[in-house]
């Protein structure tokens, strides 16, 4: 199939883009990398009246560090996360997870902010955002607001963005050297949507886990952060006991839907197994103070 008829606008400035969104609201759809929107257009599952292409807006193409935050502008392609050493140094979990985002051809064009705004429940970057506590910067003609990741994702393909808002930037906190991070995913084919993916981070101190983060993709309508499982890791001074408790918690609490590709039971099993593997990997990395570098 081919895309339906739409009006096409390619503003050269953020202001112009916001003006268009203010004017058209929900009848407009922002086109960034197109790796999520174009399939919807090609299949006519989406029929916006106006497509606002932001690829001409150079002002949105920045990947910089500021006061301990990695600031990712809306035009930044996913490929930059795996190619730029600074990203691995500052937010290792991003560099770990991006390998699982689609395929290189997708990542050459797809944007970080686009993936976040699309909010697919099985997508990797939303889980990363929730795991590290990213903040999403929404701009509109009436102003700017910062939305914490856990409040940003509200349902399948649904975010807290208003129809007149553009996700202009994603901010990821630079995680310190005593944190270790890991991201693992099970999918039918490498690069496919996650049947289950886990983002894990642990902070090492005094030979044990002092703090932890666990977020899950493909386990619900939005990325899920399991604070009880995180607490279990911190409570147990013995790593394997903590892992056992955290995995059991994941299996107990998560309620993924089953479908053609995997049953709910299998996904919960995956969640438990991946919890164990990612935590072990994250712990090794934290201990060797390599952050998230390939072990």
């Amino acid at each position, binding site marked *: 199939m081919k895309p339906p008829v739409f009006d096409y606008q390619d503003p050269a400035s953020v202001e112009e883009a916001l003006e268009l969104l203010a004017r058209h609201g929900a009848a407009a759809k922002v086109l960034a990398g197109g790796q999520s929107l174009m399939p919807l*257009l*090609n*299949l006519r599952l989406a029929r916006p009246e106006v497509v606002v292409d932001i690829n001409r807006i150079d002002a949105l193409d920045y990947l910089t560090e500021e006061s301990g935050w990695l600031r990712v502008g809306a035009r930044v392609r996913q490929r930059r996360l795996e190619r730029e050493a600074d990203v691995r140094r500052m937010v290792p979990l991003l560099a770990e997870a991006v390998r699982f985002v689609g395929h290189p*051809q997708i990542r050459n064009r797809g944007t970080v902010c686009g993936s976040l705004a699309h909010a697919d429940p099985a997508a990797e970057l939303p889980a990363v955002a929730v795991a590290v506590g990213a903040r999403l910067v929404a701009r509109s003609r009436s102003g700017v607001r910062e939305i914490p990741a856990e409040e940003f994702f509200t349902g399948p393909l649904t975010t807290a963005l208003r129809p007149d808002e553009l996700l202009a930037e994603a901010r990821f906190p630079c995680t310190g050297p005593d944190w270790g991070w890991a991201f693992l995913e099970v999918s039918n084919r490498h690069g496919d949507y996650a049947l289950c993916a886990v983002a894990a981070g642990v902070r090492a101190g005094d030979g044990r886990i002092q703090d932890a983060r666990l977020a899950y993709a493909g386990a619900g309508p939005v990325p899920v952060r399991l604070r009880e499982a995180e607490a279990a890791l911190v409570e147990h001074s013995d790593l394997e006991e903590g892992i056992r408790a955290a995995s059991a918690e994941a299996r107990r609490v998560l309620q993924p839907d089953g479908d053609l590709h995997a049953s709910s039971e299998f996904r919960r099993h995956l969640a438990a197994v991946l919890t164990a593997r990612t935590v072990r990997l994250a712990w090794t990395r934290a201990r060797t103070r390599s952050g998230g570098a390939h072990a």
Partner: protein
Amino acid sequence: MREPLRTVQLEVNGAAYTVTVPVRKTLADVLREDLQLTGTHVGCEQGVCGACTVWLDGEPVRSCLLLAIQAAGHRVTTVEALGTVDRLHPVQEAFWENHGLQCGFCTPGILMTVVAFLREHPAPSRQQIREALAGHLCRCTGYQNIVRAVEDAARRLQARGT
């Protein structure tokens, strides 16, 4: 029904083309229909199968997920630029010699990915090759000969010092 059109200049395989096309027409369709460059194939139109893979500024992308007008101001490279029937690209030679294709539908997309991949990873492991090919679906070969072809291609390129 009103169909918004745009006139744009596209640079494809080093040549300049001026086309007037519907804004909603994908790059894959414009390459095939307006420029008669039918080497690029259309499979799933969702970015999953890889048959439509071309280069945008030298990087592999899905041409079915690009509006043609978005390619204005960029360099597009298609499989036609790799080689000709009389003068195959070493990667094409490797696919030919290793029976890395049967019906050939998925092949152009794979070639575009492989040439770019070997540029970045001149001596890849088998696992790396398989991961690089994960974005392509082939219904004929079962992939074994494709992997062999890529290994052979890597050797050929190394030997040529390319």
